[in-house]
């Protein structure tokens, strides 16, 4: 009797029906999407790695020169017969512009997020949030254009030099990453449970003590993540930076001298080189640096995320 019932159930369970067919179709469709994404990513990684490394393997470029040399002229060879590929000025430019932007945008963004979440949640929700969402959507070329026509002349009037340089790039980038960092910081601050805020106030802390000692401390991993996301965006931004930095391939001695970044050299140079030549390969090496850096940012964010959930 029992055995028969089970068999009957099995029968209905294993019978092919239209529902199962839809299920399988959906499964294979989503699986295909995953495979495609993975394949494209793998292809890009392979291309950038193989091209980027060929500067050093095929064209006999020196890795040491690449990271320490200060002259960039890949078309020529030096006395040792190696291409001149000193990328240090760009690496320094990129790091400086990213670091200073984060230093400016980070505190401002966290301050704005505190205001929106803790001080004036109503005004924050009604006015600031839409404004910030709007700012996130502005294309980078617009930021660059504003930088070129407002920031550069302004710096030229105040400081010696042409106005182009790290300072101009930093100002443009700070403004550009500010909305992203602010909205991520806001998420982090708002995800601090209400119960912790109440617990802090109930222990006789002022609102300011609650914000500093409980909210910010609890949200710290999320705030760090927000700043690193901003840094990743700043490091990878090309167009807006290229428009205001001056594009001189030297290590600048001040923030107001023309400089360049990895991205600006890449965008400027890629139209003028031929695939397979050493000039082109050297640009791929720069692209490889960008890729590795963004990988590095991603790993840091993931590590912070893991620490947070643990």
């Amino acid at each position, binding site marked *: 009797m029992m055995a028969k019932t089970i068999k009957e159930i099995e029968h209905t369970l294993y019978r092919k029906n239209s529902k199962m067919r839809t299920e399988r179709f959906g499964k294979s469709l989503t699986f295909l999407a995953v495979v495609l994404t993975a394949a494209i990513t793998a292809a890009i990684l392979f291309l950038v790695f193989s091209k980027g490394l060929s500067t050093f393997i095929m064209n006999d470029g020196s890795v040491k020169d690449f990271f320490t040399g200060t002259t960039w002229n890949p078309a020529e060879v030096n006395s040792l017969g190696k291409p001149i590929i000193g990328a240090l000025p760009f690496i320094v430019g990129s790091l400086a512009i990213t670091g200073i932007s984060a230093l400016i945008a980070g505190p401002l963004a966290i301050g704005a997020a505190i205001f929106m979440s803790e001080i004036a949640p109503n005004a924050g929700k009604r006015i600031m949030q839409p404004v910030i969402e709007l700012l996130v959507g502005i294309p980078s070329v617009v930021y660059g254009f504003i930088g070129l026509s407002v920031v550069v002349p302004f710096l030229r009037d105040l400081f010696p030099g042409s106005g182009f340089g790290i300072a101009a790039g930093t100002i443009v980038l700070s403004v550009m990453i500010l909305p992203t960092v602010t909205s991520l910081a806001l998420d982090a601050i708002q995800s601090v449970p209400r119960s912790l805020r*109440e*617990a802090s*106030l*109930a*222990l*006789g*802390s002022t609102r300011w003590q609650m914000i500093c000692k409980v909210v910010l*401390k*609890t949200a710290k991993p999320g705030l760090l993540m927000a700043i690193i996301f901003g840094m990743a965006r700043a490091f990878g931004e090309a167009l807006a930076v290229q428009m205001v930095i001056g594009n001189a391939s030297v290590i600048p001695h001040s923030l107001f001298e023309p400089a360049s970044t990895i991205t600006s050299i890449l965008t400027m140079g890629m139209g003028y080189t031929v695939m397979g030549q050493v000039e082109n390969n050297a640009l791929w090496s720069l692209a490889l640096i960008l890729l590795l850096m963004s990988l590095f940012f991603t790993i840091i964010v993931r590590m912070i995320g893991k620490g947070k959930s643990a």
Partner: protein
Amino acid sequence: MNVVESIERSVIQTEDLQFYYNTHHALKNINLKFEEKKITALIGPSGCGKSTFLRTMNRMNDLIPGVRTEGAIWIGNENITEPSIDPVELRKKVGMVFQHASVFPFSIYENIAYGPRTHGERNKKVLDEIVEENLRAAALWDEVKDHLDHPATGLSGGQQQRLTIARTLATKPEILLMDEPTSALDPISTAKVEDLIRTLKERYTIIIVTHNMQQAARISDFTAFFLNGEVKEYGQTATLFTNPLFSETKDYIAGKFG
């Protein structure tokens, strides 16, 4: 309403207390006296205003926009509903333990030290003493003394709740408000927290909101039965539970509605 005549040494007294959430009249004419160093349980069905009442006593309701309080709550000689009363100072005197153990994601030590630190205590030795003393008072010291630097979020639910009690005690309150402190705990942890509350009675005036009738009967000296924003009945716990004046009280205690 029947106010027990035996209360003479009241530390908290409310006078025609009204409370509104916007237009909703949540507390109506609350006149209660709480005796010093006794446990008073507030019971009643969900939404009857008992938690709201608890939160008027340390002005936690101030945080909600659109609320209004009328009438008076006397603690000692001060009417704490007056705008001139600093809620920060008030909350140092009137501690609160919440339903869900809201430990900070810091170490056990930092959780206890948080209150004294925010009140300006910087001396490491004094803080060490405060931490030990209050963990002992909350019967948690023996369980955590070897890993005070571990994150408090790693403790069990019952330990976390005792930690939040210790954290509240560390601010040296005179009155303890407890909002369903054991509703999220298992029976063994509940028993431990109840034992703790009973020992705390020697030093603190305790007002506890509970949904657990047995708990109210076990630990409290006085019980107030709230219904629809009013105090329906108030008296000594033994009397109220064995011989309630109103049929609603009787039905609620018997579990006929909740």
